[in-house]
């Protein structure tokens, strides 16, 4: 291992180091919640910082025989994952302390972080599979971690079973692709996936995309999502729905663009259908929910659909914008969805507990209103820019099918207004009742919510320039 490779692996090495430290705290000390939480906070910050420095210095290269690559694209997603892990740790600090198992829970967050940061740098199909498993297996435990609630165990179980099936489908697809191309490296796969595809190659591609669809909770493979997110501790649902998910979208994008660019007509069509089904399923089911967690779970299905719409637009003149759209949308979604989940931790998961919140707790209510409006896509909040880029990419793709996808996206945006605004209505227009939550939760959590609200509002000024920069230097 050369010095260069050592620097390239810095974020991963740091998260491994802190993972071990936090675990050791759990083993050797009894009253340890505070120590573990501060270590985990520092750890996530250090990962974020190292990735930021690498990105700022323009570091790039490929190592270990080309299987591990560091470029602007990978570093950008490492920032998203580490940032969301940072907020998840802060959100989990007090709760996990009360369970008495803080170090274990925080270790799980750090290992998901490690898996996800590795994942976005992989260029080898088997490496990708291993990194996905490294990120997913701890997340089963995270979902089931809340032993005080039955739903947590139930959600964890469902997540585990569907997750294992998804992994085997994914692995089967990868093996078929490997069998056809004789190599698992993406650049070798690209040679095979050109011209007319053999039936085995198409089967491998479809199986692999299906496996990813499970992981990304795309319909019709989304059934685990509502139960898992409803049962999971809030910090787990918040983190899993944004961080690892962004990394999974990133690696799917890398596989498709680097590994099978010539097969684009096939996979964009698959993505178009997945996107349309996913958007409608997510939004229509979200409309009927009375539980905010469950509503946000279906909302996350819908947002997966929006991002898949960007994948469908990777053709014609839309390629550059579609890749940028994925970069922007995942960051925007991370900010606003993380914020919305953290508010659930502060307020509660029944829609009734939001009644009249603005009088009890104006700051939190205003932040939640911003997150909801951003999830709808009202300008100039974060979600608007994601949708803007997808529509632009779609309009430039020059494909009728993609135009239909974009039309479905516009229709779905309007369908989603009632359920997001239902929360705003409850908070602002209804009178407070006895069920209205008093302010609870730690000060740190509340500061996190405010920071995320500011990021959501100023997204257009802060993050758009960064992602446009990365998009220009990255894959496309």
């Amino acid at each position, binding site marked *: 291992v050369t010095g260069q490779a050592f620097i390239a692996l810095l974020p991963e090495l740091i998260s491994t180091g802190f993972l071990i430290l936090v675990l050791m705290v759990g083993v050797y000390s009894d009253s340890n919640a505070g120590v573990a939480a501060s270590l985990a906070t520092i750890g996530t910050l250090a990962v974020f910082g190292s990735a930021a420095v690498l990105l700022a210095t323009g570091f790039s290269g490929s190592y270990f025989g080309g299987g591990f690559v560091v470029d602007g694209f990978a570093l950008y997603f490492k920032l998203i994952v580490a940032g969301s892990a940072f907020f998840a740790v802060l959100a989990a600090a007090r709760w996990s302390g009360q369970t008495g198992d803080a170090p274990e829970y925080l270790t799980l967050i750090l290992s998901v972080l490690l898996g996800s940061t590795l994942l976005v740098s992989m260029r080898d199909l088997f490496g990708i599979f291993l990194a996905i498993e490294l990120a997913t297996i701890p997340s089963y435990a995270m979902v089931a971690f809340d032993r005080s609630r039955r739903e947590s165990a139930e959600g964890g179980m469902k997540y585990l079973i569907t997750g294992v099936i998804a992994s085997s489908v994914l692995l089967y697809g990868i093996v078929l692709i490997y069998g056809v191309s004789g190599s698992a490296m993406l650049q070798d796969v690209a040679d095979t996936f050109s011209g007319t595809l053999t039936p085995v190659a198409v089967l491998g591609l479809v199986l692999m995309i299906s496996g990813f669809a499970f992981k990304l909770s795309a319909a019709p493979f989304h059934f685990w999502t509502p139960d898992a997110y409803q049962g999971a501790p809030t910090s787990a649902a918040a983190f899993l729905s944004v961080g690892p998910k962004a990394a999974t979208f990133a690696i799917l994008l890398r596989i498709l663009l680097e590994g099978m660019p010539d097969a684009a007509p096939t996979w964009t069509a698959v993505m178009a259908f997945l996107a349309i089904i996913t958007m409608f399923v997510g939004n229509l089911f979200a409309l009927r929910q009375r539980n905010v967690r469950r509503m946000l779970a279906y909302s996350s299905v819908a947002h997966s659909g929006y991002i898949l719409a960007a994948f469908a637009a990777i053709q014609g003149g839309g390629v550059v914008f579609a890749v940028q759209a994925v970069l922007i949308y995942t960051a925007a979604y991370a900010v606003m969805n993380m914020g919305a989940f953290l508010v659930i931790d502060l307020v509660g998961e029944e829609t009734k507990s939001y009644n009249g919140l603005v009088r009890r707790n104006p700051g939190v209510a205003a932040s939640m209103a911003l997150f909801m*409006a951003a999830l709808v896509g*009202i300008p100039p909040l974060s979600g608007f820019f994601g949708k803007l880029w997808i*529509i*632009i990419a779609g*309009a430039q793709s020059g494909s009728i099918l993609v135009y239909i996808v974009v039309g479905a996206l516009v229709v779905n945006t309007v369908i989603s*207004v009632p359920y997001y605004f239902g929360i705003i*209505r409850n908070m*602002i227009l209804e009178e407070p009742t006895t069920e209205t939550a008093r302010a609870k939760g730690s000060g740190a959590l509340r500061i996190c919510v405010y920071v995320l609200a500011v990021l959501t509002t100023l997204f*257009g000024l802060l993050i758009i320039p960064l992602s*446009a920069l990365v998009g220009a230097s990255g894959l496309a």
Partner: protein
Amino acid sequence: VITTLIILIPLLGAILMLLLPDEERLLRYAALGISAVPLVLALYVYFAFRDDLGVAALSQDVTWIRSLNIGYRVGLGGLGFGMFFLSTFLTVIAVLASRDVQRNLKQYFAAIFVAEVGMLGVFAAQDLILFYVFFEITLIPMYLLVGVWGDENRRPAAIKFFIYTFFGSTVMLAGFLAFGILADTYAMNDLGGGGGLSRTAQIAVAAPILFGLLVKVPAVPLHSWLLDVYVSSPTSTNVLLSGVLPKLGTYGLIAVAVPLLPQGVEPFLPYVAAFGVINIIYGAFVAFLQPDLKALVAYSSIGTLGFILLGAASGNAVGLNGAVFQQVAHGLYSALLFILVGVIAARTGTRRISELGGLGARMPWAGGLLALGALAAMGLPGLAVFISEFMSIMGVYATFPVQGVLAALGIILSAMYLLYMLARVIFGPIERPAYEEIGDAGPAEMASVVPLAVLLVVLGVFPALLMSIQRPAVDAVITVIGGS
């Protein structure tokens, strides 16, 4: 820079309102003071730069998203300045007329100021995406103003308003994006005359844009969100809701759709004119049947918006000048009527026309001003509305004679229902003994309506005050679209 300053002051004002202590008198005076600042600055712009506003002066151009050529581009032009000024003016009036709002005053004023940011921004935007962003910024504060401070029917009304207009503007955004992508820029002054698009492309782009704008206006039959919202809102929200908000749509028509997509809107213009006629006639008929005074004013307001559509569709200088002028005149008279309805309802405890009567004897000032507003609405010469309605009809008659004749008939209909309303509300015997006791409008209420009435008269007698600013910009539009 001064343009940006005027747009941002209300935003600072909104933040300031939220920080102030919760004391009613202080809040009302502070809100009045904050709302006066943009008005004073707008007046300064008028007197200092009235001769060189042209198409877009005092502009600022900062690149925002380079890869898409989207910029923060603002400037004040002759087409937008009238409404820009009116927005600052009506915000002051709305603050003055907010007596009926008692709960959560500071949040109320903050919401009004955020809405003002959006309104001012739309009339100053010189970039399509920025136009859309400001267009949507008005949405959430208006939703809150109706939803929190409206009457018992407010919640369904507010969400209906939101979904309708959000759908409309999303469709409009799709049109803007297609336009920008095809023309490779979103800067309005690079897009004049179609930005190099073919006629077919222009038509394809114009259709969604027109749809979104017509929902906002609203053109009948896209108006079904409107009545509940108008009737449920507090008076001061009505001032903005009827005075400024529809003009976001008509201004888009006049300053975006027509000059930037001349060939694209051309096939639609007869229908836009027809929508204008339908608005006028439908509004008049339905207003006639309303038992509720506020609903009557609401339909009257929809009706006279039709003249703006007519003028915008005419494609000649007379009609366009009329439409631009009518935007301002309509805002003045409908704000006046809505405030007076609020005053009357507060005194008598009812808005049902059948229960009112003979109020003129007890409320000579309020009654007289109501009569003035009604006369303005039916286009009495000497008042501002007359000039613009007349010009709109003249303009549209030259292009679409049938629509022009029908619109002129509509004026007669509106005279009928307005005079009938006056007869039942102001004149005649005093309907109920209780009305013997009521007093006239108080000083605060007078302060909110008299400036409106004065401006109606002043602009009616000296239309050149506004016409001289808008004429060069209208001429520029005519040059672009190749009309006369």
